[in-house]
């Protein structure tokens, strides 16, 4: 597998084309809306968080950007999934995701924990693309702070 193919795995391209959680859920019941932007390329995301007590219920989003940023948002949405997850787990995942992406390939993402998003491990070798993959996760982090 060439470096390029390792970056753009089929799973990533699939998510980018058929994104999960795309389209903001009903404003009713939302806990926080957050807008994030990558100043270098103008990519943006609007992310809507629904908290239920201390459980992250769901994450929906809209935005435009490269396949990495789109796939990453989609993977995040599907990771939180229909079942939701505890707030603390979500925060820990965001930290772990960031640590891996900044590790220049030394800390791969664990599939057990990160699900499809583990396919983004390859991004950490492309420092200029780390921001793309982080965009949705930073948006969720901010939403959790606001909530």
């Amino acid at each position, binding site marked *: 597998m060439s470096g*390029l193919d390792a970056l*753009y795995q089929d799973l990533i391209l699939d998510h980018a*084309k058929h994104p999960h959680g795309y389209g903001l859920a009903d404003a009713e019941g939302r806990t926080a809306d957050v807008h994030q932007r990558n100043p270098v*390329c*103008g*990519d943006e995301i609007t992310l809507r968080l629904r908290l239920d007590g201390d459980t992250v219920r769901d994450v929906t989003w809209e935005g435009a*950007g490269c*396949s990495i940023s789109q796939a990453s948002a989609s993977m995040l949405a599907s990771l939180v999934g229909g079942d939701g997850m505890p707030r603390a787990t979500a925060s820990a995942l965001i930290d772990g995701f960031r640590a891996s992406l900044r590790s220049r390939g030394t800390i791969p993402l664990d599939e057990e924990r990160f699900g499809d998003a583990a396919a983004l491990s390859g991004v950490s070798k492309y420092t200029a693309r780390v921001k*793309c993959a982080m965009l949705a996760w930073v948006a969720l982090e901010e939403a959790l702070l606001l909530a």
Partner: protein
Amino acid sequence: MTSLAGTGVFDVRAVRADFPILDERIGDAPLVYLDSAATSQKPRVVLDAERAFLEHANAAVHRGAHTLAAEATESFEDARAAVAAFVGAEPESIVWTAGATAALNLAAYAIGNASVGPAATSRYALHPGDEIVVTEAEHHANLIPWQQLAARTGAVLRHIPVHDDGTLDLTAAAALIGERTRVVAFSHVSNVLGIVNPVAELVALARDAGALTVLDACQSAPHVPLDLPALGVDLAAFSGHKVLGPYGIGVLYGRTEVLDALPPVLTGGSMVTTVILDHAEFLPAPHKFEAGTQPVSQAIGLAAAVRYLEGLGMTAVHERERLLERRLRDGLRAIDGVRLLGDADADRVALCAFDVDGVHAHDVGQVLDAQGIAVRVGHHCAQPLHRRFGMTASVRASASVFTTEDEIDAFLDVLSGVRAYFGVGR
């Protein structure tokens, strides 16, 4: 070092040998550097000139009297003369700055300083309701300083729109530029469109209105023979690092009367005559604009860079790059799903920005990079222009004196496979 002036041939192989970085490989592939509009690579003569100065002759200029200092001062002023000659100007018209952004800000702050306190009677003072005109195609560096100046003085910022083909709407310009216009700031060549703007027409409109003209020559200086006095602009700016020269240096050119009339901006050492605790008097231009220790070795490096370009001959460079431009643009037009920003068949430099339908600019850039081809992706510091063309980001390929036809072809070849790679457009 390569000198082709007057030989009538452009020996790109010889030119390439002058650029050490072209030996680099990106992974397995040789570097194909198509990002010269962002920053140019530097020929060995530039690196050598700077290093020789620092190893053998370095000393504070315009301040010392010892032998080394006297020699350094001469090399420094000699560099000013060389850079002045490169743009057809007198040395006194050349103000060293940290770069084009610093130069354009210097222009804006000088006008701002002329607008407050006792200086507000100056003919260059701005008052509420006065107008500053820019274009929709400006780089942020020739836009935001004017926004800020407008905000500080109460002046109004207006803009000349861009046609779909990337040319400026001169009818709108003629309607916009009028009695209230005090400043008209525009780029010689946009760093996204690559089109050489009609300087003469804009200068004529500004002159009729009695407005000051400010030319952003960042993307013309490396590619087109420049005669700033002949262009008739009042002020002009360009960066060293885009004309094969060092980082950390740029130029503000100014007509003598204009530089003489504008107040200083940065203040400090080496730009004063008498200083008492609560007052200072300033040297004449260009020195009154050059506070503190100047980028001395960079000036010497920049002089080496413009001499190198003159060795090639700027007319020959422009001709050569025209060929590359045609090959590049024709090739891009032939690829399905590629849309150029500004496709006018005007006088152009070898620079094209484009959109690939269905594939984000970042992804396009990544595929090219995997083959060693370096292009720029993003908004290229021209967000309003991208918005004008209905996008947030584009891909830009830009050539330099060392670019070959083969490199353009390799770029086009990889690019034509991008949509298939991402599974779009079939």
